């Protein structure tokens, strides 16, 4: 067995093993360390010695043994400190290491809910999820997040301490609480996905792995909650956006807006799977923000060229999304879609209303969309002012460069520069 296959198997088994060990011994904190050590041992031994007969049982046994050691030394330390030892070294009973993995999806769900517990900071939720559910090592997480290993270690340690202090049991929350907790999981997975697209100078092409990891986690969640429309829709949304990633970045690392992308580079399989998922989820309802966003991404992905985009449908979907979620960025995207259907003046009217919204009226995106719609409406002078305002507040060099290109183009006498299609990328 080659190392890559071992790694893939280990990553899949990681949450199952951790779930089984926590169920048996409690102590999420130390169980997580013990599981990491078992994974590490397997990654070194298996490629050499071959795969054990039951890899899952092997890992659970090794992790349990390691946990027992950890608990013993913890107990000894506590006794030394003259504290009452709280850890009982007795097993809780089920499940046995060789028990069939029937409850694995359930365990993985419980783990995800725990790692995304609302008492943790987003940064801690991300790091802990990637490690405990994704099976990534601290070094791998640090690399994926472009951060240092010490920072990641500290976040994970703090998160585990917070979970321990809160006394949250390793079990599904009460039904009344479940929906809110699941929403937190969806948000964290989408944060991980978007983090994969955030980049600093010269790193745009490096971070694809993190988006793929988010998709893997969303698949895991979908396996545990196949009937939840929002869960299916989040997976669909990620697939539909990620399907464009090869067309999204130029070789120099600059971003290419959707309207200018080479659509033959879009990943057909990802699009098909995403469309199938969201098509199945929508009629099931209840309607939610991820279903609407996935539907919008699907309409974009279905268009063979920018002109074929069904803007009427996109505008209608944004309209519904806006009613669910009063978000100014959604409102901006809605305005762009409306302008594509009913002309730039109709879109500008909507943008103008946002001019009083302090959440967005000083934002680069507000000015950039205004500039774009004003230009479409033929008002070059005011469009230039809007693009200049956008360039002034932009902090990202790629975006500044893009906006300066628009300014240069508008300053050139009419007819000398090609008119590009400069639609923002609502995906």
């Amino acid at each position: 067995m080659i190392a890559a296959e071992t790694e893939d198997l280990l990553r899949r088994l990681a949450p199952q093993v951790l779930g089984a060990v926590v169920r048996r011994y409690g102590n999420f904190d130390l169980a997580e360390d013990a599981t990491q050590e078992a994974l590490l041992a397997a990654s070194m031994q298996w490629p050499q010695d071959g795969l054990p007969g039951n890899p899952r049982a092997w890992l659970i046994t090794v992790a349990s043994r390691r946990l027992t050691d950890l608990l013993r030394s913890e107990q000894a330390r506590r006794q030394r400190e003259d504290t009452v030892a709280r850890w009982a070294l007795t097993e809780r009973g089920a499940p046995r290491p060789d028990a069939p993995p029937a409850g694995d999806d359930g365990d993985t769900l419980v783990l995800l809910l725990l790692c995304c517990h609302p008492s943790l900071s987003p940064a801690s939720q991300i790091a802990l999820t990637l490690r405990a559910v994704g099976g990534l090592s601290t070094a791998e997480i640090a690399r994926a997040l472009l951060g240092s290993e010490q920072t990641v270690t500290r976040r994970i340690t703090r998160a585990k301490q917070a979970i321990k202090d809160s006394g949250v049991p390793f079990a599904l929350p009460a039904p009344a609480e479940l929906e809110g907790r699941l929403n937190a999981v969806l948000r964290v997975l989408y944060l991980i996905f978007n983090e994969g697209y955030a980049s600093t100078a010269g790193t745009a092409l490096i971070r694809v792995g993190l988006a793929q990891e988010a998709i893997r986690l969303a698949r895991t969640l979908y396996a545990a909650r196949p009937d939840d429309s929002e869960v299916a829709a989040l997976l669909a949304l990620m697939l539909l956006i990620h399907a464009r990633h090869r067309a999204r970045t130029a070789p120099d690392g600059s971003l290419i807006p959707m309207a200018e992308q080479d659509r033959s580079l879009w990943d057909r399989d990802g699009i098909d799977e995403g469309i199938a998922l969201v098509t199945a989820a929508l009629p099931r309802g209840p309607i939610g923000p991820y279903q609407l966003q996935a539907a919008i991404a699907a309409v974009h992905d279905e268009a063979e060229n920018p002109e074929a985009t069904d803007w009427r449908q996109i505008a209608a979907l944004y309209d519904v999304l806006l009613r669910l979620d009063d978000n100014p960025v959604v409102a901006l995207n809605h305005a762009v879609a409306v302008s594509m259907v009913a002309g730039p003046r109709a879109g500008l009217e909507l943008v103008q209303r946002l001019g009083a919204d302090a959440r967005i009226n000083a934002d680069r995106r507000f000015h950039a969309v205004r500039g774009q719609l004003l230009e479409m409406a033929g008002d070059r002078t005011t469009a230039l002012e809007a693009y200049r305002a956008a360039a002034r507040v932009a902090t990202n060099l790629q975006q500044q460069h893009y906006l300066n290109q628009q300014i240069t183009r508008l300053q050139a006498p009419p007819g000398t520069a090609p008119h590009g299609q400069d639609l923002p990328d609502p995906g």
Partner: protein
Amino acid sequence: MKYMILTFASQQQYQEMVGQPSEQPAWTQEDWAALGAFMQAFNRELLDSGELVETRGLSAPVHTRRVQFKEGVPVVTDGPYAEAEEVLAGYWVVECDSFDRATEITARLASCPGPERLRVRAYADVRPIDEHQPDFEG
């Protein structure tokens, strides 16, 4: 050992780089694209060799806020730098065997593309990171 590689640029240079003329003309599209491609390759190589710990580019100096402590009271000033003042623009933290190796990595930045007027006088600093390795304690 870990080392930090630091690069520097002024507000004017930033502006010219992202396509807005100032004292000097704006960078051409080709220069900008070449810079991006160079950085992608440079980072990819460091990542593959396992030497890259982290890297970040900083926004233009104009977005800086300076927080001064006047008799213990913080006072915030926006954009404290002069237009032509060269300030920190980005950094890499690399982990490698020796200062010489870190210097070698830094020297590769000499082939970073850009307008000739900048290339002939560009520089980068490399500094050891202050890390305490505990001595053997028996």
